[in-house]
């Protein structure tokens, strides 16, 4: 009874995904080139340990949409592989829907959907339609449930024109739409997306985002999303987990990133005449100036920014003023770099 444990665990878990002190070491043998190198590597004991994941813990509730980000090589894909049951951690424990994925790979497989952006799960040589037919058999989906879900997926991901095309003739964006649909035909409770927007154009990304938001809202699918595109995160993920060298360095609301890491706001001011220096507003510092324009940094003091602006307006003749907040991207970038905020700002509104 491979699914017994799943049945027992059903409805018996508070969290969709739990990771507890997950650690994964890879041992890399320093082998030479070619066949002799490979044979030597068999017998040599010269091994180097790579700590892909050092210590990762988090819990994700049903229905959450979580961004999982970090620099290249931070250990994101390794975590996803553990949670999908295809990689056994060196130590620590993971649970998905109450079951340990790498000990019950097949039972876990029934409840999860996975997209690995860099590789396809579609049958390469077959028309797209055939992949979904295969999946219907594999997941033992009743015909009517399957038809409903296919109708929904086909409509929202615009699969109609692609259905009869062989997979190998699809463009990257088309393939990704088909892949995302393939990960969802069996209505999984948890969806793992490892870089599903990689290499897509702005419009294609936008369509996929809209779709994922919709799935999360209407089906209540728990989604964990790995991406290097911070627009994905800002638009989709209420919660953000940042990984650095195999450790979680931030786990919290995406919104809170700003208040946690950003203490400064930037103002762009245009005066009616040239202004050399500002006096009388100590909480505002000049970052740069050119012509009549000036870029100012507001440091959170006792009084708010509105107060500073009104004093600025009373002392100087202002033509235009705008307040900018740093983008999530620039915040995360600065966290990776462990530097103070770089002056790379994005318009808010």
């Amino acid at each position: 009874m491979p699914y017994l444990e799943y049945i027992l665990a059903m409805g018996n878990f508070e969290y969709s995904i739990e990771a507890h002190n997950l650690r994964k070491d890879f041992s890399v043998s320093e082998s030479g080139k070619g066949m002799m190198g490979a044979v030597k590597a068999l017998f040599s004991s010269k091994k180097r340990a790579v700590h892909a994941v050092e210590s990762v813990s988090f819990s994700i509730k049903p229905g959450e949409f979580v961004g999982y980000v970090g620099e290249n090589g931070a250990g994101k894909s390794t975590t996803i592989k553990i949670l999908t049951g295809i990689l056994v951690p060196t130590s620590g424990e993971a649970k998905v829907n109450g079951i340990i994925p790498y000990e019950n790979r097949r039972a876990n497989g029934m409840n999860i959907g996975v997209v690995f952006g860099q590789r396809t799960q579609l049958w390469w040589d077959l028309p797209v339609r055939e992949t979904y037919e295969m999946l219907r058999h594999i997941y033992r989906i009743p015909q009517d449930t399957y038809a409903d879900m296919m109708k929904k997926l086909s409509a929202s991901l615009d699969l109609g024109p692609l259905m009869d095309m062989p997979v190998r003739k699809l463009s990257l964006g088309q393939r990704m739409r088909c892949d995302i649909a393939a990960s969802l035909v069996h209505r999984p409770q948890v969806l793992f997306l490892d870089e599903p927007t990689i290499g897509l154009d702005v419009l294609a990304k936008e369509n996929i985002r809209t779709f994922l938001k919709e799935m999360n809202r209407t089906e209540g699918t728990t989604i964990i999303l790995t991406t290097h595109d911070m627009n994905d995160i800002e638009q989709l993920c209420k919660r953000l987990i940042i990984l650095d060298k195999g450790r979680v360095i931030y786990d919290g609301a995406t919104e809170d990133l700003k208040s946690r890491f950003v203490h400064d706001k930037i103002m762009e001011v245009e005066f009616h005449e040239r202004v050399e220096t500002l006096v009388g507003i100590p909480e505002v510092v000049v970052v740069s100036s050119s012509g009549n324009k000036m870029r100012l940094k507001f440091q959170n003091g006792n009084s708010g920014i509105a107060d500073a602006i009104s004093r600025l307006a009373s002392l100087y003749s202002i033509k235009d003023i705008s307040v900018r907040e740093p983008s999530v991207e620039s915040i995360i970038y600065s966290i990776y770099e462990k530097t103070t905020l770089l002056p790379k700002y994005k318009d808010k509104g």
Partner: protein
Amino acid sequence: MNPSTFIKFASVSFQKQVTYRFDYFVSVLNGFLYVFIFTSVWKVIFAKSGASGGFTAESITTYAVMAMVIRISFSMEDTAIANKVRDGSVAIDLIRPVSFYMMNLAECVGYSAFHILARGIPILIVSALLFGVHLPLEKLPVAALSLTMAYLILFMLNFATGLLSFWVIEIFPFMLLKYGLINLLSGGIVPIDFFPASIRPYLALTPFQGIFYAPAAIITGHVSNERALVMIAEQVAWVAILAWMCGLLWRAGQNKLVIQGG
């Protein structure tokens, strides 16, 4: 895995072969050439020495044709697992709630089905017309059983070799070893009867003669019914032993498997 999923996997694998048929004529010709070479060689040998090893010039031709047709029909993609491990696409197989073993078996069956229909049977027909093949029809039911067991033995040897790629990326040396042992000891080229009597008992302790010798000897009526039943019993035993070993290897391998890429 339920039968309908098994058939689905097998038919997809079959279709894939149909898609890649560009080398089809080459491989038919190639197979036929092998039959021609082996039957010719046996003819020359038997012309000189007369009957030997329980074969006559006529029965050795039938044996050679059948052994080669079985070999061609039992074509398997024996590097499939290693390739999937190397490029990491094994990840896709493993996220699915299906038995890895059954999925590979199903794909293997679909692959072989194509080679039976597209190569094995045509080559059998042409060879029968050209060289003369004498098959006692009453042996067919028993032979079918032996063929099934032979197929499973070969599949599991390939599966086990493929699983070694969970430990080492480069399994080519193991493949070479496997080819060597099968070519030499399976009866696919030289019937076991021609081996020295002193080493034949040891050969019986390996699974290899259950691959081509048993089914070819049974289907051509080279062995008695009693002997055929003993051979099938040995094959069944090997199927059980190999299934158990594959199970052990698979469980151990899962902890070792490193999914590349991503």
